C-alpha cells in the first residue's frame, strides 16, 4: 500500500516537473527554430546559445507588477488563469509515456510508466481539454475590455467548432483499436506490416488512418490557438486578444497553458497515431519523447510558414471541410472494420 502511494507520488512529481521544464524550454526551442528559419540567431546572450533565457524570462515575469484593471470583475479575473492552466496539466494523467520499467533493476516489481490508465482515457482528455476554454472566455469577459472580449468570444467559437472535428477524427483509431484506454491503443499498434511483401512498416495507426491523422493535426493547431489559427490573440487586430489586461505571472500562466496544451495534444497524437512508446530498440520513454518532439517541431514549422486565417475562412474550413471529412473517415473506417475487420 505504502509502496504504491510512494511510486504514484514519484510519478506525479516527475511528470509534473518534466512538463514544467518542457514548457519553459519549448519557448527557447520555438525562438531558436523560428530564428533559424528566418536566418537570425535568436536568443544568444543568456548562457551558451541563450540556454538560460527561459529561466531569466521566468524570473523577470515573477517580478513584474501585477495589475488588475479597476473595472474588472475581480474574482473571475483572478480565477481565469488557473482555469486555463489546470486542465492543460491534468490531461497528462492518463498519457502513457513508456513501457513498464524496473528502473535498471532498482525496483522489485516493474512499474508501468503512466500515472493512471482509465477505461475512458481518450474521452477524459477531450473532457479536460473542453474545460480549458473557460479560462480564455472568462479572461476575455472579466477584463472589461473590448479587445479581450472579442478575443474570448472568438476563441470560444473556434474551440467549439474544432472540438467536434477533433473528436470525430480519432473515431477511426478507436474503431481499429477497439478500446478507449490509451494503454490498450498503444498496445494495439505493436508489430510490423509488410507492404507488398517487402517493405516493413510499423503497425501504427498513422498508416491505416492517414486522413484521421491530418484532420487531428489541423484541429490540434486550432485547439491550441497556434498559428495559422491564432485568431484569439491576433496581435495585429486585437492587441493581444483575451490576455490584453493580464500581466506578471497571470500572463505567464496563459502562456504556459498554451505550451502545455501543445505538448498534450502532441503526446495524444503520438499515442493515438504514432505508436506511443513503441520502438525497435532502446528505452521506451526516449521513443515517446522523440515522437512528441517531432510533432512539436511541426507545430513550430507551421507557425513560421503559414500566415493567419481570416475569421470567416477559419469557420468555413472547420465546418465545411474538416467536419465532413472526419465524418466520412469515421464511416468508412466503420464499414471497413465490419466487412474486413475481425
Amino acid at each position: 500500500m505504502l509502496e504504491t502511494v510512494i511510486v504514484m507520488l514519484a510519478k506525479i512529481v516527475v511528470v509534473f516537473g518534466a512538463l514544467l521544464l518542457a514548457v519553459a524550454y519549448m519557448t527557447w526551442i520555438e525562438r531558436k527554430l523560428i530564428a533559424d528559419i528566418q536566418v537570425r540567431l535568436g536568443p544568444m546572450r543568456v548562457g551558451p546559445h541563450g540556454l538560460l533565457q527561459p529561466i531569466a524570462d521566468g524570473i523577470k515575469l515573477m517580478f513584474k507588477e501585477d495589475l488588475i484593471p479597476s473595472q474588472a470583475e475581480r474574482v473571475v479575473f483572478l480565477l481565469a488563469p488557473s482555469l486555463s492552466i489546470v486542465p492543460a496539466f491534468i490531461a497528462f494523467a492518463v498519457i502513457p509515456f513508456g513501457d513498464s520499467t524496473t528502473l535498471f533493476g532498482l525496483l522489485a516489481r516493474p512499474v508501468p510508466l503512466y500515472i493512471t490508465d482509465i477505461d475512458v482515457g481518450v474521452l477524459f482528455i477531450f473532457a479536460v481539454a473542453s474545460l480549458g476554454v473557460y479560462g480564455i472566455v472568462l479572461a476575455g469577459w472579466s477584463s472589461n475590455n473590448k479587445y479581450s472580449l472579442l478575443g474570448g468570444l472568438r476563441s470560444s467559437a473556434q474551440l467549439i467548432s474544432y472540438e467536434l472535428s477533433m473528436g470525430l477524427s480519432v473515431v477511426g483509431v478507436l474503431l481499429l483499436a477497439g478500446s478507449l484506454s490509451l494503454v490498450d491503443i498503444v498496445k494495439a499498434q505493436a508489430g510490423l506490416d509488410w507492404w507488398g511483401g517487402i517493405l516493413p512498416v510499423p503497425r501504427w495507426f498513422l498508416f491505416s488512418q492517414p486522413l484521421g491523422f491530418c484532420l487531428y493535426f489541423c484541429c490540434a493547431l486550432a485547439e491550441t490557438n497556434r498559428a495559422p489559427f491564432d485568431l484569439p490573440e491576433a496581435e495585429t487586430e486585437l492587441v493581444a486578444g483575451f490576455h490584453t489586461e493580464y500581466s506578471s505571472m497571470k500572463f505567464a500562466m496563459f502562456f504556459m497553458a498554451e505550451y502545455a496544451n501543445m505538448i498534450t495534444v502532441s503526446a495524444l497524437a503520438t499515442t493515438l497515431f504514432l505508436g506511443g512508446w513503441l520502438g525497435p530498440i532502446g528505452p521506451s520513454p526516449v521513443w515517446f519523447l522523440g515522437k512528441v518532439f517531432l510533432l512539436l517541431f511541426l507545430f513550430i514549422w507551421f507557425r513560421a510558414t503559414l500566415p493567419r486565417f481570416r475569421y470567416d475562412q477559419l469557420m468555413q474550413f472547420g465546418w465545411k471541410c474538416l467536419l465532413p471529412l472526419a465524418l466520412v473517415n469515421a464511416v468508412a473506417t466503420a464499414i471497413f472494420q465490419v466487412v474486413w475487420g475481425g
Partner: protein
Amino acid sequence: MELAIFAGLALVAGGSALLVILQRHAVYSALFLIIAMGALAGIYILLAAYFVWVIQVIVYAGAIMVLFLFVIMLLDIGREQAPWAPPDRGRIVAALLLTLVLLVELGMAVAQRLVPQASTGPVVAGEFGTTRLVGRLLFTDFLFPFEITSIILLVAMVGAMVLAKRRLP
C-alpha cells in the same frame, strides 16, 4: 467514506443550483450552473458510471455551458437592474404545476427504489458503467429511444435554423 463524499457533492450541487437563480448577474449564474454540473459528474463517479461521467463533463460542462456563456457575452446581458416585482398569476400557476410534476416523478422514483425489484436488467457485474456495456445496451435494448432522440434533436436543429433564417431579408 462514500456517504461523506456523496454528501459533499450533493451539498455543492444543491447549493450552486440555488445560487444559479439567486445571482443577479447572468454570467455568475452560468458559472454556478457549471459547478452544479461538475458536482453531478462527481456523483456519477461514485455510481461507477465512468462513461456517463465523462460525457457529462464533455457535453454539459464543456460544450453546452460554453455556448451559454458565449450567448450571454455576445448579447452583453449585465446585472439585473429592475427591482423585484411579484410575477403575474399565469406564471405562478405554471410554476406550481411544473413543481407538482417534478415532485410526483421524484416520489415515484423513490417509491420504486423502496420496493425491491425482481429484475435489474442485463447488467453484468464488474462491467457496469463501462463504455463497452453502455454502447452495447444503447444499440440493442435502447435502440428505439436512441434513434428517436436523434430525430428529435435533428428536428430541433432544423427548427432553430428556420426560426433564425426567417428574420433575414
